[in-house]
């Protein structure tokens, strides 16, 4: 071996993320030369085989892109196809729209709590996993599992099952929930609210590495409420734009080292997901949630990616409150779903998946056959930001040994809750220090 001017750090299989990826960092002469987030999840070609399917099918089919956020795919597909067919569920049957939002809240509670407790918190505690944490802090892990279960029970009640729900269809639902089912959920969510408050307080007390990073931001936004199932894309810088212009602003590129496409926002690296939503929308959160978040250390603007876990916990508390509000205000719609007759056209929609903005576009023929489909998932959008953050992060920590630096890099990647199956891809870290 010659002199150590080059250092290679690698994780060949990133743990505690959804999907499969790798990371490779090359350092030469004390400078980070290259950072690659490789997603080697096999391509699954959804956009290709959606062509030729009927307009009613994408909600069930695109759910299978991701087992952790199937509702995001189902509801975005529904909204885009309804847009193509000229049906506005929000306007015509607000009760159905409220149930959709309630279902989406269930996914937010379940998915965020999974990430907070099982995927991300162990990093802050120096542990390999939450099961190890349970040996010393069993009550803490049980609290997380109870909260996660509240989200899953909501999904199962409204959706039929938690993973790949069966009850979602174009125009609404196959079956409406009964009053008794909603009353049971209300009792459970009332309990869950305490768990969510304690979870927020818990993660607020973690030690956060110093790191402040400015990215361009993208999140859906609404004037009077926290946007998840509807809203207008809001870019910073750049401002709001209609969802039908999404692909003019967010463009995807392919890189050789990843099966996931990488997207940028008006030519700039950007971030979507919890930090983007917090910075663009936290004023839309109810005062009680804002106060609890402030108590957990979230200020007016948050640019430390490690604090994304606190934003997630605050969003869980919000989703529990929002669920309780929806149930309290619920007036059963006159029918479980609107008819969505096909017509030729193009439909666009975006929603806020737990990991960030998810966009779908469908082009239909007059019989409702899908002529083309475009899906831009949040992880594809965040990939360049992850790589960029890692570059700065490693540069500032070159004094660490390989094992510790690698561990911290993995933690930094988990800040983004990368949903690599969604991006069509897996994480494998290699740091080259030669």
């Amino acid at each position, binding site marked *: 071996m010659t002199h150590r001017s080059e250092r290679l750090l690698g994780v060949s299989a990133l743990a*505690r993320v959804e999907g499969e990826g790798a990371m490779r960092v090359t350092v030469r002469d004390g400078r980070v030369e290259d950072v690659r987030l490789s997603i080697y999840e096999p391509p699954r070609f959804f956009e290709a085989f959606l062509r030729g399917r009927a307009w009613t099918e994408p909600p069930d089919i695109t759910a299978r892109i991701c087992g952790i956020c199937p509702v995001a795919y189902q509801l975005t597909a529904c909204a885009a196809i309804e847009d193509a067919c000229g049906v506005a569920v929000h306007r015509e049957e607000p009760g159905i729209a409220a149930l959709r939002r309630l279902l989406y809240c269930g996914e937010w509670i379940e998915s965020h709590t999974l990430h907070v407790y099982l995927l991300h918190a162990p990093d802050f505690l120096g542990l390999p996993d939450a099961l190890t944490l349970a040996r010393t802090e069993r009550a803490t892990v049980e609290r997380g599992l109870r909260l996660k279960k509240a989200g899953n029970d909501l999904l199962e009640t409204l959706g039929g099952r938690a993973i790949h729900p069966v009850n979602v269809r174009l125009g609404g639902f196959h079956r409406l929930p009964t009053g008794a089912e909603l009353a049971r959920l209300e009792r459970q969510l009332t309990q869950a609210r305490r768990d969510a408050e304690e979870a927020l307080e818990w993660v607020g007390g973690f030690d956060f590495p110093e790191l402040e990073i400015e990215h361009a931001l993208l999140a859906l936004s609404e004037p009077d409420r926290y946007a998840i199932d509807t809203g207008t894309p809001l870019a910073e810088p750049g401002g709001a734009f209609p969802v039908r212009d999404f692909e003019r602003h967010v463009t995807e590129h392919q890189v050789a080292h990843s099966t996931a496409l990488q997207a940028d926002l008006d030519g700039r690296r950007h971030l979507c997901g919890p930090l983007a939503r917090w910075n663009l929308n936290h004023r839309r959160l109810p005062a009680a949630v804002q106060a609890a978040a402030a108590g957990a250390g979230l200020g007016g603007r948050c640019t430390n990616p490690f604090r994304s876990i606190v934003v997630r916990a605050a969003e869980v508390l919000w989703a529990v409150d929002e669920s309780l509000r929806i149930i309290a205000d619920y007036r059963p719609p006159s029918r479980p779903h609107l008819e969505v007759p096909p017509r030729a056209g193009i439909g666009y929609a975006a929603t806020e998946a737990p990991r960030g903005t998810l966009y779908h576009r469908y082009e239909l023929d007059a019989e409702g056959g899908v002529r083309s489909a475009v899906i831009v998932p949040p992880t594809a959008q965040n990939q360049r930001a992850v790589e960029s953050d890692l570059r700065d992060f490693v540069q500032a920590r070159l004094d660490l040994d390989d094992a510790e630096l690698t561990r911290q890099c993995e933690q930094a990647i988990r800040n983004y809750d990368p949903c690599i199956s969604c991006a069509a891809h897996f994480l494998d870290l290699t740091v080259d220090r030669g």
Partner: protein
Amino acid sequence: MTTSTPVTAPRPEPDAGHRAPRLAVWKFSSCDGCQLTLLDAEDELLPLAGRVEIAYFLEASRHQEPGPYDLSLVEGSIATPEDEERIRRVRADSRYLVVIGACATAGGIQALRNLADVKEYARTVYARPDYIRTLDRSRPVSDYVPVDFELRGCPIDKGQLLEVVCAFLAGRRPDIPDQSVCFACKARGTVCVTTAHGIPCLGPVTHAGCGAICPAYGRGCYGCFGPVTGARTDALLPLLRRDGLGEREIVRFYRTFNAEAPAFAAAARRAGGQDEAGERDRAGERDRAGEEDSASEHEESEGEGGAA
């Protein structure tokens, strides 16, 4: 492809002594939903973790122990050249290998590529398809290595998964009934959606396990658990037609989440005739691969035999 038929497999003996059984969870081409089912077992997760050593479960832990493993759960289909190598290593390292979910047992939704030109698919999705390494077909794990048990579903059912894990840990056969969704519907007391409402339903030919959720929510079963053994798809065909499905719709009904499960693949071929472009492509592929004979045999035993 019978769910309850174990296949003989090499089984390294466990170490002597009373150490906890070692569990590994592997992911291939998939959505993560089936391994997530284990983490979704909120009430059972900690008790289970007390009974087994979780030696490899990337989605749950950074801690990774080398094999051998007593029980490997495998999610996902074999869809890349790397997958082919990796599944052989997993088999060699595992005393029992259980495959979970539609991807691992039947190639999954990504097996829709098997009916098409995968190069054209790659051109559709990627600007540089030459960067993409993928096999022409997405296949079940059992096409590559012997498996000890196949648990169906897209996704699998939590209760069934826990039953399978507990059974293998206890050294007994899993109690996973090989029945159709119709049995589960009757047990649940759901009124038949086909008989009462004329809703097309794949329940009679689909393996039970989900708890017959779809009919309970007022929709027909869409076959996400794949075919039940002896699926009488011929008998169902007139009912699907009566309830308003045309040939193309029936073909799509069978070709979604378990498109390459032999009984569903055969049913789609019979419903749609032999004149589809996709069929020609597929037959051509099989000829090239020299698989025509084994494929016909499989179809014979699953399709015709079941309908007799």
